[in-house]
């Protein structure tokens, strides 16, 4: 049994990390990314995680790819927290302004997005500044009010991030247990080899002793 296990692991160890991740492609398929995300970046993150393990087994590779996905979800949700605030700020501005009935809300939210990024055109900046003056608010007041409005949703996003952290912890524990198992088998193999060599040495010695 041990030999079978050893043989199985030996075959896997012979494959490179890239080969291992490729051999799992039917299961993993291509990573599900958002339109503005780069697959190359995702793969490079995955490779850097895989390189931290010494000869990861195929199951470890699967678990690490799930872990990488969790890290990406954390990034996405962190961006969402800021987006939630921007969304609420735009809503407050349009509510406070005179343009209540019209379709200016989406225009205002795009302008606000650019304004906060610092990439707004002059007319966009003017629109936001006018809306702030109309609402009698400063940008930090607006942000504070928006935070109050959207606190419930921010809490939800925090829960989502927390869940991803918990998932990562579970995955790490699983990877550790696989790693420990393979190291244990390697150690037992080494001990077995040492015993065998000792036995053979003894055999040689006893053969040498026999003639006398």
């Amino acid at each position: 049994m041990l030999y079978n296990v050893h043989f199985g692991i030996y075959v896997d160890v012979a494959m490179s990390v890239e080969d291992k991740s490729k051999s799992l492609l039917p299961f993993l398929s291509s990573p599900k990314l958002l339109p503005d995300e780069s697959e190359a970046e995702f793969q490079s993150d995955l490779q850097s995680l895989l390189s931290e393990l010494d000869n990861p087994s195929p199951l470890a590779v699967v678990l690490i790819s799930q872990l990488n996905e969790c890290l990406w979800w954390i990034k996405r949700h962190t961006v969402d927290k800021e987006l939630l605030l921007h969304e609420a700020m735009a809503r407050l501005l349009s509510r406070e302004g005179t343009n209540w009935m019209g379709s200016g809300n989406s225009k205002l939210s795009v302008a606000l997005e650019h304004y906060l990024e610092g990439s707004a055109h002059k007319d966009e900046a003017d629109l936001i500044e006018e809306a702030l003056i109309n609402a009698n608010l400063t940008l930090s007041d607006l942000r504070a009010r928006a935070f109050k409005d959207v606190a419930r949703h921010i809490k939800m996003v925090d829960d989502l991030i927390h869940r991803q952290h918990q998932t990562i912890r579970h995955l790490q524990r699983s990877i550790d247990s696989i790693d420990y198992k393979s190291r244990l088998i390697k150690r037992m193999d080494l001990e077995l080899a040492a015993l065998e060599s000792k036995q053979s040495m003894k055999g040689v010695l006893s053969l040498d002793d026999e003639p006398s």
Partner: protein
Amino acid sequence: MTMNHRRSLANRCNALKSTGPRSVTGKRSSSQNSRKHGLNTAPDFESSSEYRVLFDLIAEEGFSTFACADIATGLLNYRRVMDAYYDTYTSPEPVDEFLRDANMKASNPVFRELLSPSGSEPQDVREMASFFASMQRQERRKGGPVSRRSSDTHKLIRYQRNGISRLSRAVRQG
């Protein structure tokens, strides 16, 4: 009448009194339950090709047959949850911008004009306006696209928790 029969009748009567959502919004919301993510249905992983691939791969690492089956099922189940998570995240319920941005006070004359040919009372206009106002409140409470996708994804937390616990347990006990 036997005790069991009486009890079963009583249960049926009570069930008629108390099951299901009562409000219109509750009924509307629960009518979409099975269509959202499909995670409440029992999956059949054993007959899928991915299951065989995974099973063989895990078996090579020296896990027992039972452990291989558990780990492969756990992994596929976790993937199913995460795929639903992604789908929910990328396709939130669309925002009804007209309803969200409409001025309800300004719309009262429009309702009056719409209802006057049938000789309706001001009461009807008020009811219609209050119905639209309640719809607008609901629409606004849901927030924009980011709020919607956060709250929709939040509903999948328990599936993710169960999925990863099951997988992690299978790997560690294997």
